[in-house]
């Protein structure tokens, strides 16, 4: 039974008849501007009833036109026509809108439109409107309604040019371009068919000169009677991706025209229509079913491979089961292994990832062994699978040094990489990766073995020559390194990196000689380093090191010269930066800074100003970048000079960089000072909260001042809120969290801020215990005002150990806390350094043991 449709009330609740006229007029204008056509119609109608003003009538006419357009777009043509007729009824002098005329023609009622051109009032029709109506009639004639022409006078342009326009259409469709050009030539510029001419000209050019075609189409207005054809031609010129998006919103006829223009065969159009019926972003299930339906056309192999890919993206923990469930192909043994490897993230489990790729390689090796004439590409596939574990997990990354444990996963990854070279010995990158890995562990024998294999294939390869030089330097074979450097420079004369590495190596060797009290040999090393220095700055640094060595040797002349140079620089305003340069040069040779300062008669350094601070930090950073850490003496010198540093004169970026540099130099006091100064300007800024916390607890948080921990937890939340993932991750690394033998968890460090009264009211811990049983742990912690981070950690423990275990643990903690100081701070565990860096690989034997074992937290 149909229900009586509830009549929609206009916005404003039908109160407008009671409204004052100015208010109603404002509402009408606002509704019109907001394209709320029905509200605008109601408001303007009311206004016109009150007073027949021309501007209100125009407003009503505009609202009618908008509403009619809305209905036309929805395909409600008759309803739209009724609205146009209401608009026309507003006054006999009101011109018929082209859309109105178009609708009349489209609904098979062209007589009224023709009458406008031929009737007694035709002369009163504005020129623009007359042209628009003519174009509507012209489009209709080309659409096949030639009977219209009989109602038009013989001299009417729509009738006079119809034959040429129709001939042009026929010639275009038949591919007769000569006839088309001839027909177009017969249509004058001011013809009602002129938009049609532009479109046909564009279509003639749309393959060879798309930009020109586009420009011709732009001459046709979007509200032209020929606009649908313009839209189809425009769609046909779009890039593929944009076309697929735009076509989804266009009508079927328009899309079909565009598809044909693009060269789409009927089968493609049909398949696209099928795809368009799926969601905008089809789900893997919908896609795989479509692939299966069209398997014959798409090809079995392609459908099979793409189905496996879709299984990886399906929302399922078991891709094979999903494939079975959706009617996909049944994977063979290798495909199953690949599916498993594809779905394991090395971030979640590096061991499983490494193992799964190795399993795939083993399966292919079996194929290789059982095949009488194995495909050479099979060997390449085996090699790539053996390399995949390392490539995906970056196991032998440049910062990784060999563990030395054959069961550790870096050793296994290296073993698999070496094995891959027996299947595919032409991969230079693998040789270099292994050489780098072995060099970092100073396993030079292994590095040399791989280098020899690689150089037998690529004897003049630059990267391999550089690796050979590095190995020679590692082994202290300076002559060999120099020979290799000359070879490299002969090929690449501007290779400054090679020179830099040689200088660094000779300086390091000079330091060794100083340590052995062989300053004569150290001088020779410095002289050689000077010879290899590729730029003035390096030469100056080597010269300074040579002078310092002379001072250390108590060479009176050299000491006097250097002292005079330094004094001159100090007079010119040199400050801490210059002294740091001296100190780092001394550190480079392992010379005593105190002794040098005494001989050079240097007092404690003074930080001059902002520029001196910035220059000092830059020098320190440059040294750290070259793996040169300041010695204890140098660090003490800096700690003495930096307390008066003008941190507030630095910009935010400079302060961030300064904090990082000071962190790397382990200058904790200065770093804390810099971060504290920054926090005065940018209160609560997560990155500076992190620096202040880390600098305050360089050996790890000691669980004494819980306020600092909460401040950092709040900084973590702010970093998350700001989308600053990097800082958030850095804070998370520093925050002590629950873990196996790691830092102690920050379990309920009550009383929480602002929860003092609640805690006082429940002075007896048993009450809290009862509450936990009744309300649950989370609720009680919320009542006590625990920070969200603490609640989250408790929830984590609850998930890991179960509700009962978490409950008992909290009860024990509360008991312990009550004995000491009810709701006071918990006993402070031993300080632990914050957990940092890449987690070490776990042993293979441990992997299985961990699988089902709940994580036991070391809470006490």
């Amino acid at each position: 039974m149909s229900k009586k449709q509830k009549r929609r009330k206009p916005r404003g609740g039908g109160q407008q008849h009671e409204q004052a006229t100015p208010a109603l007029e404002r509402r009408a204008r606002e509704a019109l501007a907001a394209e709320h056509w029905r509200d605008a119609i109601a408001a303007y109608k009311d206004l016109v009833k009150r007073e027949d003003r021309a501007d209100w009538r125009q407003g009503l006419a505009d609202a009618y036109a908008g509403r009619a357009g809305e209905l036309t777009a929805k395909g409600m043509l008759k309803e739209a026509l009724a609205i146009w007729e209401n608009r026309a009824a507003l006054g006999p002098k009101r011109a018929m809108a082209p859309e109105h005329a178009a609708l009349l023609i489209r609904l098979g009622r062209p007589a009224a439109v023709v009458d406008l051109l031929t009737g007694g009032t035709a002369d009163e029709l504005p020129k623009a409107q007359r042209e628009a109506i003519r174009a509507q009639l012209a489009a209709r004639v080309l659409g096949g309604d030639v009977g219209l022409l009989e109602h038009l006078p013989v001299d009417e342009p729509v009738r006079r040019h119809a034959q040429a326009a129709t001939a042009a259409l026929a010639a275009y469709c038949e591919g007769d371009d000569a006839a088309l050009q001839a027909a177009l030539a017969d249509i004058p510029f001011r013809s009602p068919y002129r938009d049609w001419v532009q479109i046909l000209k564009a279509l003639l050019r749309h393959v060879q000169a798309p930009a020109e075609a586009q420009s011709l189409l732009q001459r046709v207005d979007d509200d032209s009677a020929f606009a649908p054809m313009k839209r189809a031609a425009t769609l046909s010129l779009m890039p593929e991706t944009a076309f697929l998006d735009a076509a989804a919103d266009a009508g079927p006829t328009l899309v079909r025209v565009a598809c044909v223009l693009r060269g789409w065969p009927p089968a493609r159009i049909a398949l696209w229509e099928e795809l368009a019926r799926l969601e905008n972003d089809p789900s893997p299930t919908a896609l795989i079913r479509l692939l299966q339906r069209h398997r014959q056309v798409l090809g079995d192999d392609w459908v099979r491979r793409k189905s496996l890919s879709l299984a990886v993206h399906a929302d399922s923990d078991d891709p094979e089961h999903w494939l079975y469930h959706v009617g996909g192909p049944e994977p063979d043994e290798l495909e199953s292994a690949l599916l498993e490897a594809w779905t394991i993230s090395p971030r979640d489990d590096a061991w499983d990832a490494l193992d799964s790729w190795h399993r795939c390689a083993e399966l292919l090796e079996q194929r290789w062994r059982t095949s009488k004439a194995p495909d050479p590409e099979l060997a390449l596939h085996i090699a790539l699978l053996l390399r995949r574990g390392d490539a995906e997990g970056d196991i032998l990354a440049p910062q990784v040094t060999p563990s030395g444990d054959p069961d550790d996963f870096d050793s296994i990854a290296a073993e698999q990489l070496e094995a891959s070279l027996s299947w595919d010995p032409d991969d230079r990158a693998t040789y270099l990766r292994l050489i780098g890995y072995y060099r970092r562990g100073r396993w030079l024998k292994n590095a040399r073995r791989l280098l020899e294999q690689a150089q037998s294939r690529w004897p003049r390869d630059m990267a391999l020559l550089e690796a050979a030089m590095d190995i020679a330097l590692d082994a202290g074979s300076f002559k060999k390194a120099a020979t290799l450097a000359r070879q490299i420079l002969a090929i690449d004369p501007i290779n400054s990196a090679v020179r830099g590495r040689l200088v660094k190596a000779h300086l390091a060797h000079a330091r060794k000689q100083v340590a052995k009290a062989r300053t004569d040999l150290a001088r020779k090393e410095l002289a050689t380093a000077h010879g290899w220095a590729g730029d003035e700055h390096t030469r100056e640094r080597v010269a300074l090191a040579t002078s310092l060595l002379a001072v250390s040797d108590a060479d009176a002349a050299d000491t006097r010269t250097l002292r005079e140079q330094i004094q001159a620089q100090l007079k010119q305003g040199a400050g801490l930066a210059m002294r740091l340069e001296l100190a780092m040069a001394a550190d480079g040779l392992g010379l005593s800074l105190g002794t040098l300062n005494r001989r050079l008669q240097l007092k404690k350094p003074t930080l001059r100003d902002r520029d001196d601070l910035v220059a000092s930090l830059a020098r320190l950073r440059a040294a750290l970048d070259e793996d040169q850490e300041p010695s204890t003496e140098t660090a003490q010198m800096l700690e003495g000079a930096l307390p008066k540093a003008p941190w507030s004169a630095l910009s935010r970026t400079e302060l961030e960089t300064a904090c990082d540099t000071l962190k790397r130099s382990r200058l904790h006091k200065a770093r804390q000072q810099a971060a504290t100064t920054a926090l005065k300007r940018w209160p609560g800024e997560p990155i500076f909260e992190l620096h202040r916390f880390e600098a305050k607890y360089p050996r790890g948080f000691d669980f004494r001042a819980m306020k600092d921990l909460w401040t950092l937890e709040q900084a973590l939340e702010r970093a998350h809120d700001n989308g600053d993932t990097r800082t958030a991750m850095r804070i998370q690394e520093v925050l002590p969290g629950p873990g196996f033998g790691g830092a102690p968890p920050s379990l309920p460090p009550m009383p929480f801020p602002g929860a003092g009264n609640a805690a006082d009211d429940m002075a007896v811990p048993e009450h809290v215990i009862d509450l936990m049983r009744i309300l649950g742990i989370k609720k009680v912690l919320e009542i006590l005002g625990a920070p969200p981070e603490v609640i989250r950690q408790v929830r984590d423990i609850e998930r890991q150990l179960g509700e009962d275990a978490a409950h008992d643990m909290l009860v024990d903690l509360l008991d312990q806390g009550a004995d000491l100081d009810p709701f006071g701070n918990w006993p402070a565990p031993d300080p632990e350094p914050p957990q940092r860096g890449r987690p070490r690989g776990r042993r293979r034997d441990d992997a299985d043991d961990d699988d089902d074992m709940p994580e036991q937290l070391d809470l006490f």
Partner: protein
Amino acid sequence: MRDPYLVLGLDPDADDSAVERAYLEAVKHCPPERDAARFSAIRTAYEQLRTVRDRAAFALFDTTPPTPADVLDKAAPVGAPGRPERALIEALLRGES
């Protein structure tokens, strides 16, 4: 991301020279100023298939799901641009969008 074999119009057993030829041909027909997105797809496809090692890696490790454009290209590749039938254009001009 598109299936590189379909972007370049290559058979699965294409060798280095076939990949090179297809790439040059594709770039000639679709320079960046004409369709930047398609040019970028062509370039990416070429990088994915350039050497035998690249093609083997694609075969073993690529898990990109097929896009609707892949399905269309595989089932019925785009042919030479055509001209619609007169009836289709007439229908469009009559307002049958």
